[in-house]
């Protein structure tokens, strides 16, 4: 609170980027957690809520006739333009926001003040939603060749790795320790994915400290053991995801890459994915292109090309494809590394996993994959996403690129994924917003040590939250049983298969997107079919019960009454027989009526407001922007009153 110099400014104008006509006048509030803009005389839905932790940058522009422009640039690529009448107010807001959006301590992050209406047990339960142990056992681990080695339980061998690590059973502790000493930051080769069908694995590590000629026996034994743990193959791939030049340059610093001559039966391969700095600049250029105000076709395509973004996405995809093919088609294990083994390595391993295993194309599968390859293996979320004030050079859209690879795959295989693009975008927001506690800190150890108590005491886990909203994230076209959607996906890496992800980068430019959504529509149709089927089943069940009762009555009547009196049972009989017919005749009608009124309501509201009014959850694109980033429906308590 002490950072807020100016809690409230009146007569602020919110300028729409695409059209100056849609400017709103209203009041700007600064709270401890949000910037809130309330349009004058407008209803709730026009309120704008921006989490401070989502703010990437605050910029003051030169004064214009109408006042002092203030830009809030968000990490979800939203750019909000305010015009503030008084220079002093503008400056105060600027100073306050600049400070509020750059927290210095983890404790300042929103996830520690976010307090949805759930009790302690529920919150703790949310942290148990994903279980990595269960994930490894789904893969078929541990087995007779791989086991969990307790060596890193205290994070002594490698402080950026998780506590539980799978290594070949044949590997002894000294080998692990030796190998870890020969790798950057102690990140020795360990298992990331195991393929049940043919025992091939994807392992990951950091670069070896080979310099120009150094060797390490234990490291060589380690690789040998990994290779041997795949009985079917006689060699393994070692994939260095860096461009060869970068890897060679590292040798001068005593790091480098594996020498094929020193390691038995390895095939060494470079895959040129650029480093985090190149990626950061590339995305910056892409964002500039996406923000162009009505560019020509040529300007847009040239800008897209010059950003190099799609080229980088393609190189990550190709690396993933290479590895997944090696595992699935050749049955050969692969060791992947880059420099430190937490950026490119994470990207490539997880893209390969999505290609290999249909499970990662389901909602829960993708959550587990991110939890495993990114959160537990020490992707430095705090640095890469800039959660805290710190080195700008450490920020890089590494996880964005992974999500985008998945999106590109979804574009190529519309029936292969259980989730839709809203799911990816929601994950993207949550990674940056610090709304939940999952993506803060840089490693498992940090999370446990530093703020173990407060994370689990105060913050919530996003995965359960997303799971509860899963109906919003379903792809109606998902066909898991189709043979081409099982097993390895073989995407084309032809250049035309890589598209600009409009929904992510232009998410807030509503006029750019299709006005009707095919998928939402299909989802509603599908749900309704299901509902009708359930109804039908219910009635059939009731019929069966009634039939039984009727038979029983008849039987009893027969038993009790003699044949003459049985005539009396006729009216009773018919009335009973009528009952199920009434249900069938009456119920669908009733339901039809209900439906009609609903749909006509929806029509009206469509005409008026553009806000679709289906009570079902497939509520169109509009539901997305309003959620999470701008205003969370269950975060009422963090409103201005509370602050």
């Amino acid at each position: 609170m002490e950072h807020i110099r100016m809690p409230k400014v009146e007569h602020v104008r919110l300028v729409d980027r695409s059209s100056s006509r849609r400017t709103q006048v209203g009041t700007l509030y600064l709270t401890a957690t949000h910037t809130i803009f309330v349009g004058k005389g407008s209803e709730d839905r026009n309120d704008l809520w921006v989490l401070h932790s989502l703010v990437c940058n605050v910029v003051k522009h030169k004064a214009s006739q109408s006042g002092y422009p203030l830009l809030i640039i968000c990490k979800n690529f939203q750019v909000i333009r305010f015009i503030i009448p008084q220079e002093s107010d503008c400056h105060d807001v600027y100073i306050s926001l600049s400070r509020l959006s750059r927290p210095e301590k983890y404790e300042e992050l929103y996830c520690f003040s976010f307090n949805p209406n759930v009790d302690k047990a529920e919150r703790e339960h949310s942290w148990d939603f994903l279980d990595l142990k269960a994930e490894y056992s789904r893969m078929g681990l541990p087995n007779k060749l791989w086991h969990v080695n307790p060596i890193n339980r205290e994070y002594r061998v490698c402080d950026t790795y998780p506590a539980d690590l799978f290594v070949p059973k044949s590997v002894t502790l000294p080998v692990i320790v030796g190998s870890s000493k020969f790798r950057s930051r102690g990140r020795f080769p360990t298992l990331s994915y195991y393929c049940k069908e043919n025992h091939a694995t994807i392992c990951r590590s950091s670069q070896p400290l080979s310099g120009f000629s150094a060797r390490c026996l234990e490291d060589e034994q380690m690789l040998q053991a990994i290779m041997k743990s795949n009985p079917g193959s006689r060699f393994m791939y070692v994939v260095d995801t860096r461009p060869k030049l970068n890897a060679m340059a590292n040798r001068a610093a005593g790091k480098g890459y594996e020498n094929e001559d020193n390691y038995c039966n390895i095939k060494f391969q470079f895959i040129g994915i650029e480093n985090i700095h190149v990626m950061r600049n590339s995305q910056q250029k892409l964002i500039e292109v996406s923000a162009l105000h009505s560019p020509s076709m040529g300007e847009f395509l040239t800008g897209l090309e010059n950003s190099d973004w799609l080229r980088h996405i393609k190189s990550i995809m190709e690396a993933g494809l290479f590895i997944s093919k090696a595992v699935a088609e050749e049955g050969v294990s692969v060791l992947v590394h880059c420099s430190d083994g937490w950026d490119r390595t994470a990207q490539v391993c997880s893209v390969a996993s999505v290609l290999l295993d249909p499970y990662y194309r389901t909602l829960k599968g993708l959550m587990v994959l991110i939890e495993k390859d990114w959160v537990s293996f020490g992707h430095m979320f705090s640095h890469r996403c800039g959660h805290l004030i710190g080195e700008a050079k450490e920020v890089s859209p590494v996880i964005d690129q992974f999500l985008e690879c998945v999106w590109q795959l979804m574009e190529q295989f519309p029936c292969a994924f259980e989730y839709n693009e809203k799911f990816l975008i929601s994950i993207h927001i949550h990674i940056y917003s610090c709304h939940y506690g999952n993506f803060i800190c840089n490693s498992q150890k940090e999370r446990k040590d530093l703020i173990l108590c407060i994370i689990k005491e105060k913050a919530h886990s996003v995965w359960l939250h997303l799971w509860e909203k899963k109906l919003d994230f379903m792809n109606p076209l998902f066909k898991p049983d189709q043979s081409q959607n099982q097993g390895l996906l073989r995407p084309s890496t032809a250049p035309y298969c890589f598209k600009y992800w409009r929904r992510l980068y232009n998410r807030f430019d509503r006029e750019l997107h299709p006005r009707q959504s095919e998928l939402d529509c299909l989802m509603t149709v599908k749900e309704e079919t299901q509902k009708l089927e359930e109804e039908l089943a219910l009635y059939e069940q009731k019929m069966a019960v009634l039939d039984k009762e009727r038979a029983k009555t008849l039987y009893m009547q027969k038993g009790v009454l003699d044949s003459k009196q049985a005539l009396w049972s006729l009216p009773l009989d018919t009335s009973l027989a009528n009952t199920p017919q009434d249900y069938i005749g009456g119920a669908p009608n009733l339901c039809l009526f209900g439906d009609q009124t609903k749909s006509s309501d929806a029509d009206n509201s469509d005409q008026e407001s553009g806000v679709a009014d289906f009570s079902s959850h497939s509520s169109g694109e509009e539901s997305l922007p309003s959620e999470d980033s701008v205003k969370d429906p269950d975060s009422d308590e963090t409103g201005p009153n509370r602050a």
Partner: protein
Amino acid sequence: MELSEHIKTANVEAVTLRRPFHPALRGTLCVTSHHLLFSDRKDEASRQLLILIKNIDAIEKSVENLFGYPRAVGSSGTITIKCKDLLVLQLEIPGMEECLNIASSIEVLNIVITSHRQKERLLWDRWRVSKVNSDYSVCPSYPSAVIVPREVDDDKLIRSARFRQGGRFPVLSYCHHRNGMVIMRSSQPLTGANKKRCKEDELLLQAVIDGSELGYIIDLRSAQQAQQARMTGGGFESKSCYSHWKRIHRHHERGKVVQESLIKLVEVCSDPSHTVDRWLSKLENSKWLSHVHSALSTAGLVVECVERDGHSVLVHGSEGTDNTLLVSSLAQLILDPASRTVTGFLCLLEREWIQAGHPFQQRCAHSVYSHARLKQECPSFLLLLDCVWQVWRQFPLALEFSEALLLRLAQEVYASNYGTFLCNSEQERCAAGVKENTHCLFQSLLKPDIEEQYLNPLYEPTDLAIWPSVHPQSLQLWTGMFLRWTKHAQNMEEAREEVWRIVKEHRERAGPDRTNNTLSTHCDTLTPFENLMDELTIL
């Protein structure tokens, strides 16, 4: 548009009705297409009131206290209804918004009911079918019958035709039923270097806009090109001679340039070995998407003139046989729900392309692979199909036909078992006996039952204009066409089949009516796109 669609609020509870000789009554107010119904939901007839909307002579809304009744408490409003039979009633409606909605619904309904019929009659009062071209002597590329303003006689048409390139004088292409505004098309006027005038041509256009209104001429050339055209005998409508028309220039590439774009595009699509950078720069370099962009933008501009601003439009470029048809038919697709059905779309093509004299034979003699020297080839029609595809991507529920129909047309236009795309004009087709000797593609597509693959399973008609976004971010490469023979297309086919399966399953369970109902909830608001609005305002 149905009458009921004008009703903003159909039902309000807790309304107080005051009328002569009756105590004030609280109850529910309903607005229907033709009636105003008030009831306190009890059986007595005196406690109900039914008023024909037609009977309402005036309606006043107010928050002030009228007739000495106490002022409404809280947010509420009063509507005073004055009927033609001299009855005066007051309705106190809780909620400001409801009050205003009810009042405006009644006002609009009253106008609409009255004008519903009149409009159609008016239309035919102003326009007529002229057979001046029945022997194709006035304009060889026009059909034998065209629609022109009623007050312009055939002699004037002949004069105007002499003043237009190829004799293509301004004719009616589309009349917007909601406001009676029209889209006309023609070729360029032959003003030449010494600024010739043609009084009949001026009169013809004056007749189109009927007195004091303003019309827009959308010239599909840049202002500079239009100036240059005067050197070769062509030209444009000058401000001084056509004072009620405002000219807007929009540059469109034509002929060889567009053909070369297509060649470059296909070339880059068929080489998957490129890097992404090279692919993007070659895609940009082909300029194909730029042509799509400009066609859709100009069509959007035309629609804005007609639908939003309520002005008539004349579209022309030079000859008026390519881009002119492209823009006018796209504008109709955006504006007119009728042209979004299969039949309507094929009719549109028949009217705006085949009868209007798009020289198919010249334009589609060769496609992209031919080594023959280019003469008059130009993929204008393919460009249209691409634009239609873009509209479909943005409004996946709005068109009755599917991508497959567009692909089929793209194929037929170059090589066909049917006679539909033969020759360059109706005159040529007549002379060659096309109608007698060949079958009609459109008829075979429609009869007896159109093949399922040509239908859009999600089709849900909407009466509103479907304004496509023309931002480069919103336009995509038509992969179904240009990457048709790649693996990519197979996965899309799988998705298409799955869509059909889901819809069919639903129909089986719920019956087709119910499916349509479900779909209809997905028609989002279709709002005009703002960038074009801004452009217009600047002009």
